[in-house]
């Protein structure tokens, strides 16, 4: 089973400060990390390899730092690229890279935690023409087939497709491992390939990004009676 995991490196969102004049985000000097659900995807890939054999390749929009982390978590090799584009652009780049790779399964996080747009997995599967199974909370593989349990708003679905397929995973699927020192050291021997794909056309232009103003009253009440009064008037 050869698995590709698509990973996005993002800013540590809690560290982003706001420029007081322009209200825009200050990202300079902010640490970066692998987006949360992408770690679940990587963890799942490593577990599948542990059970079924094969390889795990991490395809990372980001730097060597993220590659090292992915390798320490158990990926066999990492490919890094930089993608300063939107979802259309990123999916197009990924499809181009994956076109030249050998794989049975592609795993993605259901969304990146900075954008939360849930687009890359479905777009990528559409671009390369393979089945996509979204919002997976459980994956099972047998005989060239994949069975995924997915959660929708009011129901769970058990869905099936033939391999190769793409699956997007939720946080529920597993608890990503924290690599040991030995694994971190071991990762330095693994291969990191850096590629620079041509910049594709984007579908969306961002005109501005501004901090949300919090305009709440922030009144601290002294006792529960006051609280009850506020509740009664607010629930009218």
């Amino acid at each position: 089973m050869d698995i590709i995991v698509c990973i996005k490196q993002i800013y540590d969102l809690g560290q982003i400060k706001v420029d007081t004049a322009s209200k825009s985000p200050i990202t300079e000097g902010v640490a970066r990390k692998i987006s949360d659900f992408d770690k679940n995807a990587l963890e799942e890939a490593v577990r599948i390899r542990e059970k079924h054999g094969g390889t795990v390749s991490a395809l990372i929009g980001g730097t060597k730092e993220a590659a090292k982390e992915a390798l320490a978590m158990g990926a066999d090799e990492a490919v890094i690229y930089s993608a300063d584009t939107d979802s259309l652009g990123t999916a197009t780049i990924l499809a181009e890279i994956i076109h030249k790779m050998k794989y049975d399964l592609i795993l993605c996080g259901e969304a990146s935690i900075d954008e939360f747009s849930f687009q890359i997995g479905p777009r990528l599967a559409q671009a390369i023409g393979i089945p996509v199974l979204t919002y997976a909370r459980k994956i099972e593989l047998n005989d060239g087939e994949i069975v995924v349990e997915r959660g929708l708003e009011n129901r769970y679905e058990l869905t099936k497709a033939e391999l190769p397929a793409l699956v997007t995973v939720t946080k529920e699927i597993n608890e990503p491992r924290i690599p040991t020192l030995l694994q971190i050291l071991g990762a330095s021997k693994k291969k990191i390939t850096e590629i620079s794909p041509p910049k594709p056309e984007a579908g969306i232009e961002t005109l501005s990004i501004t901090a949300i103003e919090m305009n709440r009253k922030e009144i601290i009440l002294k006792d529960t009676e006051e609280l009850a009064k506020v509740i009664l008037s607010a629930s009218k």
Partner: protein
Amino acid sequence: MIFAFSEDIETAFEILAKGREIADALKSELAAISIEGHGKEEICITYGADKVYSIDSGLQADLIVDCISSLINPYKPEILLIGGTRLGKEVAPRIAQKFGVGCASDCIDFSLVRGELIVKRFVLGGRFIATQRFLRKPQIVTVPPRRFEKKLDKDRKGEIIKSSIELVEPKVQILVIKKKTPEALRIEEASIIVSAGRGLKKKEDLKLVESLAKALGGALGCSRSVAADLKWLPEEHWVGLSGHKVKPKLYIAIGISGQVQHIAGIRDSKTILAINNDPNAPIFKACDYGIVGDLYEVVPKLIEILK
């Protein structure tokens, strides 16, 4: 032409209301796409559609992508509005990729500038709002459920057009569907929400928060910690950036610290109230009224007074 689709009928009505405004401003036509409509096509007209394209194909993502694409080809819509359910958020980007265009997810606001759509959406973990425009058409957006009000006009007239397309075998098969029980709560619809956080010591204590919710005729919500980490409540109670985005007239946060991701889900609430024993909890910077105190004292007392 503007297209609107959601398999969730309430969300369909809401995006039709928004679509109607845009269509009027552009002097364009609004068409609802109804897949497995089960006779709801007429109602789509009373909620704002000029036309309804009705296709009976089955509500499976591969089929929905094919159906909508088959209508985009001949009619070349300027704008495609899709209800931001999980299914909607899968099909919208797939259609966008197929046509080589952008897609803006979970748009919270729309405007038109020189006939082009300008959208706003949360980014960077919900602390910022991005204003975006499309570089190509169709302009595809998903709209979160319960974001906009539906508008009924019983006298509206329109046309229902039965369409059929040659369906190919879907690549993904649905083997089993298991309904969530009890019948999933729709927390977005509650006008009062009382939410519990990690400040609760044990699962049984949820009863306390729930009885306050009951006393107020509201719904029970929770933070991610309670739903995802402790697994004390199912996903439909989970409020926040990665959970449900709500805008009740009253939101009460009990034992919730008020991290940005939680706030991102309650930002549009009319009044926010907090009960927390830590005076430095960030929730006090994000609420209208707060009380610093032990929830195990405040909540029972509150229920007593409210009775």
